[in-house]
């Protein structure tokens, strides 16, 4: 297990948080484009699963997460981290994948701090997805 709260991580988080604050200030609660990295069927199923939260609070926390983790900045990265490969194409599959991931996080103590809130990685990824908004 990597050392929690190493000085380097603190500094990285600080820089990422500054970016997040700047991004939020620039476009409060606007949803970001995703680049169309996953199939329409998978994306539709994800949003139909009802597990991606909505609202300003979710979007802002999601942006913080994405800015702090550039490797999970796109919708494709987040979906793969959450749903595996190949990606689920049905809402039930997404729900089960998310539940497995969330319970696994709790078991392993995988958590992250977002604006003070201690959330599991799975919650953070779902929040990240929330910042993209549903498919048109």
């Amino acid at each position, binding site marked *: 297990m990597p050392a929690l709260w190493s000085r380097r991580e603190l500094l990285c988080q600080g820089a990422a948080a500054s970016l997040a604050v700047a991004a939020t200030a620039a476009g409060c609660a606007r949803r970001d484009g995703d680049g169309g990295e996953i199939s329409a069927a998978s994306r539709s199923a994800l949003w139909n699963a009802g597990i991606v939260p909505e609202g300003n609070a*979710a979007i802002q926390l999601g942006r913080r997460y994405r800015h702090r983790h550039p490797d999970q900045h796109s919708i494709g990265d987040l979906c793969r981290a959450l749903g595996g490969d190949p990606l689920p194409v049905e809402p039930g599959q997404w729900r089960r994948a998310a539940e497995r991931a969330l319970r696994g996080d709790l078991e392993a103590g995988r958590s992250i701090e977002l604006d003070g809130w201690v959330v599991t990685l799975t919650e953070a990824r779902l929040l990240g997805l929330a910042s993209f908004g549903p498919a048109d």
Partner: protein
Amino acid sequence: VFADLRSLDQGAVLDADLCVIGAGAAGITLARAFAGTDLRLVVVESGGLTPDDATQQLYRGRSVGVDNSPLHGSRLRYLGGSTNHWNGWCAPADRLDLAARPWIPHSGWPLRLEDLVPHYEEGRRLLGLDPVRFENVADIEDEEPSDVTEARADDADDAEAALPLDPRRLRTAFWQIDHPPTRFGEAFRGELAAAANVIVLLWANVVDIARSRERAAVEHVEVASLGGRRARVRARRFVLACGGLENPRLLLAANGVERDGLGNRHGLVGRFFMDHFQVELAAIYAGRAERFELLRQRRRASGISYRPGLCLAAALQRREEVANPVAFLGPRRRRAALQPQDDPARAEETRRMLDALVESVTGESPGDDGPAPPWDGEVIHMFGNPTPDPASRVRLGAERDALGVPRLELDWRLGEADRRSVGVLAHTLGSELYRVGAGRLRLARWLRAGAPDDDSWLDGVTGANHPMGTTRMALDPRQGVTDADARVHGIENLYVAGSSLFPTAIRPNPTLTLVALTLRLADHLAREMGAARPVVR
């Protein structure tokens, strides 16, 4: 019996086998240990039976480091000492507190937990506590099991049915709350009055500890009342038992023969000052009510209250290379007002969103709308276990008190290692309390990503008035002021009692441990002086 310095002849000389300086928790414990024996004791107490403002002023001093309580307000100077205002929180040290930890410079006691166990047992009887529960050795890696593990209290075990925490990350540690707290002066005044072999000399302030010029030993202590009456106490052995601030002060001020003070050949007297630092960690949003309630203090059938604390598992402390802080639920404190707070309405909105997110994924609600959001109520506090730092110290200032003794200057330091320990505890708590359904944490701003990487977190810190470390024990005189028997290195008949002996801070409040150490010292002195002392049954 009690005596009053002010009614003795000017220049009177009292002879004793053992002179105990100070009648607080340590001094009274020692006096009781020898009451009724063949030894003649003189216990020198600065105050009287009740508080006196002029005497209390002798404690005034200056604080130049981390902001702390005024030095004349954090302790009390009359019979019973600071037990006259303590809160009665008791728990034994953790095994790891006493261990030398490579990741914590200067850590390690010259004693093991096993060395203290019989004395803890006697100490808890003296304080009227339930049996003391020691840490389960299964939690400690790389150490041999020992009988210590058997000394578990059923009551505490039941209480620990508390939260199903992952033992690799967190563990519950209970304080017993001695309620009402044992005020040593009141509780044992009758015994002291009846002890024919013990003279408790009131209104007697030690103004000098006089070392012989011929041999490395104390000859006498010079005492004075505020009104100018003076006397001298000669004894075979002396024990300094004035607390973690006054013990080093008197040693440093006793510079008639050794210019830098008694026992200070290596410049260590007064260094390594430590205090438990208290700071608000997080707001807690209650989860399932029955789990959240387990964070609260509760009273057992014995009448003793137990307060649960949450500590990092020993294995995790090793892995993360941190100290041993403890967190607990408590009311928001005034000091927290110095830290920026969050907007409660927005926070509540976010909390509900997060709960809904989890429910949508698992089909289970992480909370049951138990207690209301505690923004103005209960929060998670932390009781930090400071790491030893020679630059954190007390020294003599330029000013003198009414009796001509230099006043203290306290330079308390906390560093990056202390802050990092807190960060690890906060994150671990956040994830574990949520996992077990007790609640969701929102960390204080100073713990969040992007918080200033400077000392501003100290704005919210308060001390706990638990001065430790200033006459630390160590086998090597270059590492400590006293040896493992609490004898001052290089002085054959001078001992120290109290939390100033702790070379590394312990996780819980110090009183039970300092009482146990004092009882251990009593056994040592009894052997040396050929006395059989009665044991508290």
